[in-house]
C-alpha cells in the first residue's frame, strides 16, 4: 500500500521527465542530422566542382594541343592564338584544383603526379611551337614524333580519370554513410516517438487512476461524514434524553422527598403543641400534689424533649435546604438559555458591586479589568460570576486584606475569564471535589451546603464551556472559566447550526 502510493506519487513526474528528455534527444538528433546533411551536401558540391575543374583542365590541354597541331599543319596564326589562350588557362586551372584539394588528403595524393606531367606537357608544346617559329619545322615535327607529348597527355588523362573515380567513390561512400546515419536517426526518432506516446499513455492512465482514487476517497469521506453525522445526532439525542431524564429524576426525587418532610416538620410542631399542653397539665397536677424536687425533674424532662425536637428541626431545615438546592439545579438545567450580546465588564462589575457592603466590612477589594464581551445567556453567566465572587468573598483570610481580581482574554475560539483571590485557598486534592454537589473543602466555619460551585460547573457546562481550579492552601485560588466564542444550544438540532 505504502509502496504503491509512493510509486503512484513519483510515477507521474518521472514519466514527464522521461518524456521531456526524449524530446530533447530527438531535437538534438534532428539538429545533428541536419548539420550532417548540410556538410554532406557541401562535400557533394565540392566534389562536383572538382570534377568540373578537372574536365576544364583537360579541355584546356586538349585545346592547346589541337591549336599546336593546327598551327604546325597550317601555319595559320589563329591556331596559334587558340593555342596560347588555352596554354594560359592551364596553370590557373591547375592551381584551382590544388586549392580545392586543400581538405582532401586522398585526392591530393592522387593529384601529386599530375602537376609535373602537365608542366612537362606544356614544355613540350612550347618547345614545338618555338622550333616551328624559328623555322626549324623539321625539329618541331621530330619532337612531335617522339610521342612524348602523347604519352604525357595519356598520363594526364589517366590521372584525371583516377581522380574522377576517386571523387565518385568518396561521394558514394559518404552517401552510403549518410543514408546509414539517416536510418539510425530515423529509427531513434521513431523509437523516441514511440516512447513519448507510451509516456503519454502511461501519464494518462496514472492521471485517470489518481482521479479515480480521489473520487473513491471523496466518496468514502462523504460516507464517513454521513455516518459521523448520524452517529453524532444519535449520541446527541441520547445525551439529551439522559439529561432530561436526570432533570426530571431530580425534580421528582426532590418533590417526593419534600412530601414526607412536610409531615415530619408538621407533626414535630404538633409534638411541641402536645408538650406545651402536657407540661401545663403536669404543672397543674404538681400544684395539687407537690413532690420533692419534682419541678426540677420536670424541667430536666422538658429540656431533653426540647433538645430532641431542636435536633429534629435542625435536620429538617438542613434537608429542606439540600432538597431546595437539587430543585434549583434541576430547574436551571430545564431553563431555556437565550444567547444575547452581553457587556461582560459591566455585568461583572455590577455583580461585584452587590458584594460591596461585605467587602467593605472585611476590608477586601474586588477589581475587575475590562473583559471581552460575549454573546451568551445573561442570567446564566451572571450566576456563574455571582457564585464565584460569593465564594471568594466568603473564604477570605483574616490576616491579609482580601484581594479579588477578575480578568479575561480572547483566544482564537474561546474566551477565558479568571477570578483570582488571595483567600485561604483549596487543597489541590480537593480541586475536583469542590465542584461536586454538597461537597466542601477545608474548615467548616462558613455557612453553606456545598452547592455554589456545583451550580457554577453545571451552568458553565450548559454554556458549552469548562471551569478549572488552581490553588494552594493559604495562597488563594484561581478559577478559570473557558467559554466558546459562539454558543451552540445543544438542545436544538446541531446540524442546523
Amino acid at each position, binding site marked *: 500500500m505504502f509502496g504503491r502510493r509512493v510509486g503512484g506519487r513519483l510515477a507521474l513526474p518521472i514519466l514527464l521527465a522521461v518524456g521531456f528528455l526524449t524530446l530533447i534527444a530527438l531535437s538534438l538528433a534532428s539538429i545533428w542530422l541536419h548539420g550532417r546533411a548540410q556538410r554532406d551536401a557541401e562535400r557533394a558540391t565540392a566534389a562536383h566542382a572538382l570534377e568540373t575543374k578537372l574536365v576544364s583542365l583537360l579541355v584546356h590541354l586538349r585545346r592547346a594541343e589541337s591549336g599546336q597541331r593546327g598551327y604546325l599543319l597550317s601555319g595559320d596564326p589563329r591556331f596559334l592564338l587558340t593555342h596560347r589562350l588555352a596554354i594560359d588557362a592551364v596553370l590557373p586551372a591547375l592551381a584551382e584544383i590544388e586549392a580545392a584539394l586543400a581538405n582532401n588528403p586522398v585526392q591530393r595524393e592522387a593529384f601529386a603526379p599530375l602537376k609535373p606531367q602537365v608542366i612537362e606537357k606544356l614544355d613540350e608544346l612550347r618547345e614545338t611551337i618555338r622550333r616551328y617559329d624559328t623555322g626549324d619545322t623539321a625539329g618541331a615535327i621530330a619532337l612531335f614524333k617522339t610521342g612524348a607529348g602523347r604519352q604525357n597527355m595519356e598520363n594526364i588523362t589517366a590521372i584525371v580519370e583516377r581522380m574522377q573515380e576517386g571523387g565518385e567513390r568518396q561521394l558514394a561512400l559518404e552517401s552510403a554513410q549518410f543514408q546509414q546515419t539517416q536510418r539510425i536517426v530515423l529509427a531513434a526518432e521513431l523509437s523516441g516517438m514511440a516512447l513519448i506516446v507510451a509516456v503519454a499513455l502511461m501519464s494518462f492512465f496514472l492521471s485517470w487512476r489518481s482521479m479515480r482514487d480521489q473520487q473513491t476517497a471523496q466518496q468514502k469521506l462523504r460516507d464517513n461524514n454521513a455516518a459521523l453525522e448520524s452517529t453524532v445526532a444519535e449520541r446527541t439525542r441520547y445525551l439529551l434524553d439522559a439529561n432530561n431524564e436526570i432533570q426530571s429524576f431530580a425534580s421528582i426525587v426532590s418533590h417526593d422527598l419534600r*412530601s414526607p418532610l412536610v409531615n415530619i*416538620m*408538621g407533626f414535630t410542631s404538633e409534638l411541641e403543641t402536645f408538650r406545651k399542653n402536657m407540661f401545663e397539665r403536669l404543672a397543674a397536677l404538681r400544684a395539687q400534689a407537690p413532690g420533692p424536687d419534682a419541678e426540677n425533674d420536670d424541667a430536666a424532662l422538658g429540656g431533653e424533649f426540647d433538645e430532641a425536637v431542636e435536633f429534629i428541626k435542625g435536620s429538617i431545615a438542613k434537608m429542606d435546604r439540600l432538597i431546595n438546592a437539587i430543585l434549583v439545579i434541576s430547574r436551571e438545567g430545564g431553563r431555556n438559555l437565550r444567547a444575547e450580546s452581553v457587556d461582560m465588564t459591566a455585568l461583572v462589575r455590577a455583580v461585584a458591586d452587590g458584594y460591596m457592603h461585605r467587602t467593605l466590612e472585611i476590608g477586601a477589594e474586588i477589581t475587575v479589568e475590562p473583559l471581552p464581551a460575549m454573546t451568551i445567556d445573561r442570567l446564566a453567566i451572571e450566576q456563574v460570576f455571582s457564585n464565584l465572587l460569593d465564594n471568594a468573598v466568603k473564604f477570605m483570610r483574616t490576616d491579609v486584606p482580601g484581594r479579588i481580581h477578575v480578568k479575561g482574554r480572547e483566544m482564537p475560539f474561546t474566551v477565558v475569564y479568571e477570578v483570582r483571590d488571595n483567600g485561604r485557598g483549596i487543597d489541590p486534592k480537593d480541586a475536583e471535589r469542590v465542584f461536586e454537589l454538597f461537597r466542601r473543602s477545608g474548615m467548616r466555619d462558613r455557612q453553606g451546603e456545598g452547592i455554589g460551585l456545583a451550580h457554577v460547573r453545571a451552568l458553565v457546562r450548559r454554556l458549552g464551556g469548562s471551569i478549572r481550579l488552581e490553588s494552594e492552601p493559604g495562597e488563594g485560588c484561581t478559577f478559570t472559566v473557558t467559554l466558546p466564542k459562539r454558543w451552540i444550544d445543544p438542545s436544538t438540532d446541531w446540524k442546523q447550526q
Partner: protein
Amino acid sequence: MNAVTIILIEDDDGHARLVEKNLRRAGVSNPITRCADGESAVQCLFGGGCAGQLLVLLDLNLPDMSGIDILQRLKTDSKLGRTPVVVLTTADDKIEVQRCYDLGCNVYITKPVDYEHFANAVQQLGLFLSVVQIPETA
C-alpha cells in the same frame, strides 16, 4: 345559610391530617370531605358524590392522575366552574404556579416545612374561606 363543604383532595394522610388540624385550630368548622386519590375526587366532584356549595383544596401530586387535570376539568365544568380552588403543593415551580393561575385556581399555596409559615398560610386560608362569597349555584 348553606354550609360550604371543603373538599380536600390529598393523597398523603399526614398532610391531610395537618391541613385539617390547622384548619380546625384556625377556627374553620366547615365540613371537610377528603378524597385520597384522583379517581375518588372525580367521583365526588363530577359523579354527584358531593352536593351543595364546595371549596376545593387540591394537591397536584396525586398517585393516579395530575391535580392539574382535575383543576382544568373543574374550571371548564358548567356547574362547578365558579367553585373556588386552592392549590396546595410541595412544588413552587414558577411555570407550574403560572399554569395553575391560568387555569383558574384562586390561591396557590406551597406546602411549607416551617410550621409557623404553614400555620400562617392555613390561617389565611381560613380567613379567606370565611370572607369569600360563594356564588349561588345555578
